[in-house]
């Protein structure tokens, strides 16, 4: 535990000193969220509920940017520069290394989330119809699932090129096709079918239920997909972590 805290503290300082996390983890998600909030809140034809539903998607952009981009890319960089090789000949568990990095990225995701909530609340007068605790709990589950996928990419990518490819692919497909930027509801039917494969799409469905305070309905399936991601991501990383 002592080493996890020390590792996270030092990593935190290193990562926060770089501009990447501020730019991609905070500025970009907040900007995008503001833009969507602005467009949807003004567009009368899309109705008030579409604007409310967009809250689910925009709050996950920061999670995507930090969890499936920032996290795996930093780990892959350490592997590339043989920094992980030095850790391999110490008693540290790879789970700690990944968790320390995840905590750092999570801190940016938290800032991002708070900023998006503030923007939605202050500028667009957003009120959550459902209950905040249920929403936050669901949001936590979605975050865990996304971070587990990021861990898996970072933990297993054999080199930087592969890590880049996988995290970019995961980031952009989920950003564009899971309803995070373009609402699921406006997509053509066949794209919606495609979207149903993406884990984040399931997360956003769950979040939408939570926003509206509706019963979960098909929520069991969505939750199962997310929990599956967590199990595969965390288990795969712990078992198959590549030091070099």
């Amino acid at each position, binding site marked *: 535990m*002592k*080493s996890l805290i*020390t*590792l996270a503290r*030092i990593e935190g*300082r*290193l990562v926060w*000193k*770089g501009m990447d996390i501020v730019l991609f983890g905070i500025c970009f998600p907040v900007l995008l969220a503001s833009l969507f909030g602005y467009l949807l809140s003004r567009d009368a034809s899309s109705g008030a509920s579409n604007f409310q539903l967009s809250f689910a998607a925009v709050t996950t952009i920061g999670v995507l940017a930090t969890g499936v981009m920032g996290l795996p890319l930093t780990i892959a960089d*350490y592997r590339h*520069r*043989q*920094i992980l*090789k*030095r*850790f*391999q*000949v*110490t*008693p*540290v*568990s790879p789970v700690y290394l990944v968790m320390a990095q995840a905590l750092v990225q999570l801190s940016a995701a938290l800032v991002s989330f708070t900023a998006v909530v503030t923007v939605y609340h202050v500028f667009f007068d957003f009120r959550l119809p459902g209950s905040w605790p249920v929403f936050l709990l669901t949001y936590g589950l979605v975050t865990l699932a996304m971070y587990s996928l990021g861990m898996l990419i970072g933990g297993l990518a054999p080199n930087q090129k592969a890590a880049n490819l996988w995290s970019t692919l995961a980031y952009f497909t989920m950003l564009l096709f899971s309803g995070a930027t373009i609402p699921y509801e406006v997509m053509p039917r066949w794209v919606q079918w495609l979207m149903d494969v993406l884990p984040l799409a399931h997360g956003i469905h769950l979040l939408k239920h939570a926003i509206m305070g509706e019963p979960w309905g098909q929520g069991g399936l969505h939750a199962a997909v997310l929990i599956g991601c967590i199990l595969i991501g965390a288990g795969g990383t712990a078992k198959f972590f590549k*030091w*070099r």
Partner: protein
Amino acid sequence: MLNVRNLSISYGSKTAVDRVSFELGQGEVIGLLGANGAGKSSAIAGILGIQKSTFEELTLLGRSPIAHRREVFQQVGVQFQETNFPDRLTVQEACLQWASLYRETADVNELLHYFGLAGHENQAVNSLSGGERQRLAVLLALIHNPKLVFLDELTTGLDTKARRLLWRRLLTMKKAGLSIVLTSHYMDEVEVLCDRVLILKHGQTVFQGTVSDAIGTSSKPTLEDAYLEYSGEREEDWDEIANHVS
């Protein structure tokens, strides 16, 4: 402390290390010698269990470094030939980070002082000079008072004084029971530190024994000449190269 029997490493069809065997007792120092590419670093990677290898026996402090990685490295220190650090990491953070990985650690301030890094605590590791970074790498390998330490080209890039200081430190620790596996291209260093040497040529052991044996069994007057003879780098060949160039 260390038992290696018939350790071999292949990269594809190329055999980098061919059936290397040696043992190391408490307080003993062995030097792995050989030209660049002879297989020294590969052998170390194989012994540490981080490079795929075949072997009949491989134990560090009585345990397999592969099956019992976390227990073994609680008491084993390693300085690789090349040591990279994250950007912006300071000397102080490098020490804190490394110390946090172990149950017990030495007096870090004393180590910083001894290795001439006191006063550099807040400096970024990547802005240190080559020699300073090398000293930090050795310091980190010793930060948890290991019982066995691997030092790959320990004094490359160090100035004379730093070299002598490091030798003195290692000899004191050796007397206190530290076992060391080192590689070096400097024969004066090998003579000062090593009880035994193992000379590799194309991955094969061409000599193993004490320093005086190495000199005795060759027809040469010094360890450096004996080493060159064993490692097959005869000076006569260089004359040929020199003549060819001129």
